């Protein structure tokens, strides 16, 4: 390692520093040379070279025993720190490698039906011997973790534009029709659907989301004027709004299947040709056949 001190260049040889460190720890050259598997004269000469490179004496050679100078004591303190950190680094890297090998981290984006995530995890458990860990979160956070290789697989309702360039592969794993649903008090709207939705109170996803754009295009094509009471991308909020009878929601069939089965919600109708697609993103290292 090259060190520039006030314009003067010094070289620190870490092999020499390690020899010095072992000699001090062992208390004599004979034991140190055994541990290091090098001859005593070679070890002695390497330590002298080290002293010359630093331009200091590390040992007081007037004494019969191995005695450190003040500079030697300081050098040994630093060497202890340096090799402690080195050991820590090696331990952490080994554990990290082991963790990466044993765990399969699956990111599940907010808004993706949980039942789909569970299906993927069951599949992964059957096909892989790894421990499965699910991380739920926001799209920006999960994409960052995915790019940083903190997540192995990502379940998402959209594919970012740069995915293929970044070396990610993706597969459409599900496609669910978008339905209009709500409390049973809106049952009469099933008749003459979708025309019946004219001026019906609706809670929709935000305008910049893909599903909202598809929904708006559908109503525009059908020439139906809708009344948007509120907007949310949060499926729990949508479900609450609908099941409390405040209005209707437009969402994927997969995300409300449980509420339809329990009769908490009823399906008013389907928006023909409008679907929510779910994708599985994999990095090159995790091309698992699902």
């Amino acid at each position, binding site marked *: 390692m090259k060190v520039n001190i006030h314009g003067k260049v010094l070289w620190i040889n870490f092999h020499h520093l390690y020899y010095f460190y072992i000699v001090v720890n062992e208390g004599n050259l004979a034991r140190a040379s055994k541990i290091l598997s090098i001859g005593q004269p070679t070890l002695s000469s390497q330590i002298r070279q080290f002293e010359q490179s630093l331009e200091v004496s590390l040992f007081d050679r007037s004494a019969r025993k191995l005695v450190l100078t003040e500079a030697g004591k300081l050098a040994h303190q630093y060497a202890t720190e340096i090799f402690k950190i080195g050991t820590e680094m090696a331990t952490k890297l080994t554990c990290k490698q082991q963790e990466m090998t044993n765990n399969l981290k699956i990111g599940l984006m*907010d808004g993706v039906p949980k039942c789909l995530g569970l299906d993927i995890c069951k599949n992964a458990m059957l096909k892989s011997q790894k421990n499965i860990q699910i991380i739920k979160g*926001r*799209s*920006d956070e999960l994409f960052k973790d995915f790019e940083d290789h903190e997540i192995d697989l990502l379940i998402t309702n959209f594919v970012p534009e740069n995915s293929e360039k970044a070396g990610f592969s993706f597969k459409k794993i599900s496609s669910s029709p978008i339905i209009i649903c709500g409390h049973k008090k809106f049952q009469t709207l099933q008749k003459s659907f979708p025309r019946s939705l004219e001026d019906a109170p609706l809670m929709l996803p*935000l*305008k*910049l*989301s893909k599903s909202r754009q598809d929904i708006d295009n559908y109503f525009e094509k059908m020439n139906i004027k809708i009344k948007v*009471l*509120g*907007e*949310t*991308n*949060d499926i*729990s*909020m949508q479900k*609450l*709004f609908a099941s*409390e009878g*405040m209005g209707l929601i437009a969402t994927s069939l997969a995300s409300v299947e449980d509420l339809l089965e329990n009769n908490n919600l009823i399906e008013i109708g389907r928006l023909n040709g409008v679907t929510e697609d779910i994708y599985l993103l994999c990095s090159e290292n995790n091309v698992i056949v699902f």
Partner: protein
Amino acid sequence: MKGTLLIVDDEPELVQNLKNLFSDDFQVFTAGDGVQGLEILNQRNIDCVICDFSMPVMDGLQVISKTRMFGNHVPFIFYTAYDNEALKNQIAEYENTLFLAKPNIKELIDMTFIIIKNRSFL
């Protein structure tokens, strides 16, 4: 025990009107900007927040991001006339968020009641 509601808006008249509307049913706290709102969120156990987007000192996005950063998942109703879709999209990345456009006061009242009633499910 009464539910708790926090209203964060820089229009004092609107804040007072909303407080009058909800104070019979809920314990209502009010804040004129995001900083005051965050202080209340840190001190009280709030069931629902009605928040504006565009406010002095700290806007709605900063308020919700800091609230979530502290692990608080309280539902937020963003009640606003400010129609910035990009900002709304950033806010919508956080869970338990809903957008109602001013002046739909009936929907605001209904939704606030529903959220507070179902607070434990959100």
